[in-house]
């Protein structure tokens, strides 16, 4: 058995808890917290009843116990950090992750803030304490991009990467192309479908995709790239006419994140792309093409978000840690 503490019980946290409860993965949840409450039990918590309580009351358990208490006092091997992304400060997640790592606990997160803002420092703390910091779920949801880079493509030099990393933008552009909608109409539709936030700025101005590009660049090249280094253009000024003009040539327009170190290119921008190009995926799907010295081009396509889809990436990281580090009867 591996014991885990789960911080955050939103869409992703509930997905992870639900799958751990349902599947026989050899993982037990011994601590849990949301923004208002928490609880712990070294023998494993009853997830089903806690989740039912959460949806009834809005908070999961004892309001005198905080997330920090759970991180400090629960008995666990790995922390699952799935609180909201703060792209400016990375908090409270950075604090939570540091607290866990310095107690020699492994950390798995889906939170882009800490990895984009403090990757180097967090990695150093993890290394010093001999534990793992894994973040497969931060980029492209269910697509196992980090595992692919680390294992499948081990020994390859990554020469370039191109990605469709924001499902909201891809949905809006797909709909503008398919139905001739204006940007505003497509955005409204995306909101109704639950694909866009009330404030869509992070998505449509390419900030979310740029943050993911920062995470990928630091993972692959360790180059200390920051959000400010990304040349960024959003999709909010696109017109239906522009999509039609692209269509006339057998092309469409998609928001592409691109990193090519040899050309010093790090950018997120709407691009004209042939309709049969592998990166032209429909709706909220994500896609990534890696160009490497040995494998040449590899494209991965899959779901970039969703409760169970993101849980898939988190559980992949947990089981990797379990295999590699945690030996227990």
């Amino acid at each position, binding site marked *: 058995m591996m014991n885990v503490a789960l911080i955050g019980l939103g869409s992703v946290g509930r997905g992870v808890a639900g799958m751990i409860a349902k599947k026989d993965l050899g993982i037990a949840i011994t601590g849990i917290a949301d923004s208002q409450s928490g609880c712990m039990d070294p023998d494993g918590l009853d997830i089903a009843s806690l989740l039912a309580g959460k949806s009834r009351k809005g908070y999961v358990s004892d309001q005198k116990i905080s997330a920090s208490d759970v991180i400090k006092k629960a008995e666990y091997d790995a922390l699952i950090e799935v609180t909201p992304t703060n792209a400016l400060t990375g908090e409270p997640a950075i604090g939570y992750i540091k607290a866990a790592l310095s107690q020699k606990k492994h950390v798995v997160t889906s939170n882009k803030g800490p990895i984009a803002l403090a990757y180097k420092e967090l990695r150093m703390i993890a290394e010093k304490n001999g534990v793992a910091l894994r973040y497969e779920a931060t980029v492209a949801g269910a697509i196992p991009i980090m595992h692919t880079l680390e294992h499948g493509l081990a020994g390859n030099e990554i020469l*370039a990467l*191109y990605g469709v990393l924001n499902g909201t933008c891809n949905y809006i552009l797909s709909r503008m192309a398919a139905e001739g909608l204006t940007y505003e109409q497509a955005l409204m539709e995306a909101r109704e479908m639950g694909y866009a936030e009330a404030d869509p700025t992070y998505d449509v101005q390419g900030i979310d995709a740029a943050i993911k590009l920062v995470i990928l660049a630091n993972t692959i090249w360790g180059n200390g790239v920051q959000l400010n280094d990304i040349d960024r*253009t959003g999709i909010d*000024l*696109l*017109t239906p*006419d*522009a999509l*039609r*003009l*692209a269509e*006339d*040539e057998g*092309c469409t*327009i998609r928001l*592409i994140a*691109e990193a090519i170190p040899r050309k010093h290119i790090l950018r997120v*921008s*709407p*691009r*004209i*792309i042939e309709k049969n*190009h592998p*990166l032209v995926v429909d709706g909220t799907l994500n896609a990534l*093409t890696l*160009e490497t010295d040995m494998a040449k*081009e590899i494209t991965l396509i899959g779901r970039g978000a969703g409760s169970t889809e993101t849980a898939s990436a988190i559980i992949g990281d947990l089981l990797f840690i379990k295999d590699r580090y945690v030996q227990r009867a």
Partner: protein
Amino acid sequence: MKLEMKDSPGQLVAALKPISEVGGNIIAVIHQREPDLDNDTLNVQIVLELPEGRQERLISLLNEQGVRIQRIDKERLLYQRTVIMIGHLMHTDLSDTVDQIDSTGFAEVCELSMSMPAVNERSSSRITIKAVSKGDMEAALAILRRVSHQKSLLLIEPLEEIS
């Protein structure tokens, strides 16, 4: 595309007629002395643009003329890129934007399609640029990026093919 042949007497002249017959456009004729051959034969390369699907016909016409082709290189020596620009294109002097490319001498705007929405709304245009080399194309795109920035236009570039 690029045709390569030996310049024995009359070969070049015999080659030119079929090219114009199939609607080809000759861009350059390059004579090259083969350094490792001690005789006096010249190597001739004809760089030309050919409409889609005319290549077979051209080759059979050339054969009829007795022209011996040594090599056909379909690599596009003529670079073409299409971009889309969005913004107040007329208010920001579209002909000046086009002229900034045309006046370089190494690149030109060869096609421009434009949508004209209501007055004061942003318009969209598709602009195809041709250049002789990849480097020239890069330089032309750099000019467009600078002009777009100055004129507050949104420039949408093509995704480069993976090299």
